[in-house]
């Protein structure tokens, strides 16, 4: 499989650091942002295959980020501690393919990325 270009948006320092290392070890190219504003800049400046974004961010929500993105990545994953059905539905309506409940297991993320790899490889 071709390595994915991944943008992580997360403001918890340890999570973002180790998530980046974890994904890079899997062979992916990773850019990290800590706020909605940083993520908007990153989306403009970097070609992104997969967006993995926290929902609760210091300057807004991951929902706003994706809904207002001018250049949407082909595959997006929300991460959140909000576990109500309505939160999950809100993520899906914003354009996320999955709503990953935090703290998630690495296996859950790997399965989602396998799906992303297959879908992105099939794109024209």
């Amino acid at each position, binding site marked *: 499989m071709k390595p994915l270009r991944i943008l992580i948006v997360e403001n918890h320092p340890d999570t973002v650091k180790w998530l980046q290392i974890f994904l890079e070890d899997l062979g992916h190219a990773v850019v990290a942002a800590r706020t909605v504003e940083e993520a908007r800049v990153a989306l403009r400046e970097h070609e992104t295959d997969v967006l993995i974004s926290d929902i609760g961010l210091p300057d807004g929500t991951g929902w706003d980020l994706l809904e207002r993105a001018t250049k949407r990545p082909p595959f997006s994953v929300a991460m959140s501690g909000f576990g*109500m*059905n309505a939160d999950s539905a809100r993520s899906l309506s914003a354009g996320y393919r999955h709503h990953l409940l935090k703290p998630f297991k690495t296996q859950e993320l790997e399965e989602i990325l396998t799906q992303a790899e297959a879908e992105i490889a099939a794109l024209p």
Partner: protein
Amino acid sequence: MTAKKKGGGALLEALERERLFLAEELHEGLCQSLGALSIHLKALERRVKKMAPAIGNDFAELHRTVEEAIDQTRFLHRTLKPPVSDGPSFLKALTEWVESKRGVLECEASFHERIDSITPGVAVALLRIAQEALRDSILNPTVTATRVTLAVKNRSLMMTLSDDRKPSSGPRNAAALQVTAAHAKSIAGKVQALEKDATIEVRAPLAASPRRSARSKNF
């Protein structure tokens, strides 16, 4: 309204506030740290396995332990701040709660009907009542089995919580019963203890089904 009744409502509010506070603390602190630790260990496990497989396996074991801690923390978070907003999510949360106690007691749950028309407030209150009753059963040394049933009767939801306690084992915890009564009152429901406290029966009003209301208007 009497001072006692006002006090019951205030006690419930204080309990819920405390639970939400603890849930937030748990999520923002321990949950985030465990999540980061799990990713950290998995990354280390992968790196070390290439150089020293035996030590890599030790990391794998540590990683599994952290993932178990994540499961436990998620459950605790859901107990403090149940993700219930409607009938199906209430049934899911109640089933999970009953199943989590199966290792301690023989627990049986039977839900005869789908419950669609239930407000978030009723869902949370009924879940809290079930939690109180099950905790009380666990604390009674004579109890070996419990049963939770849900049924719809006359536009009300009937929840029955029973166990096989011995009559000589004394009444249910008075404070737990007070909390249960306050929860029932908060949703305009009724609660009664039967068979020397072996059974708690709660009747809660169901919200009118929007579809049915619209149809009756048409007729």
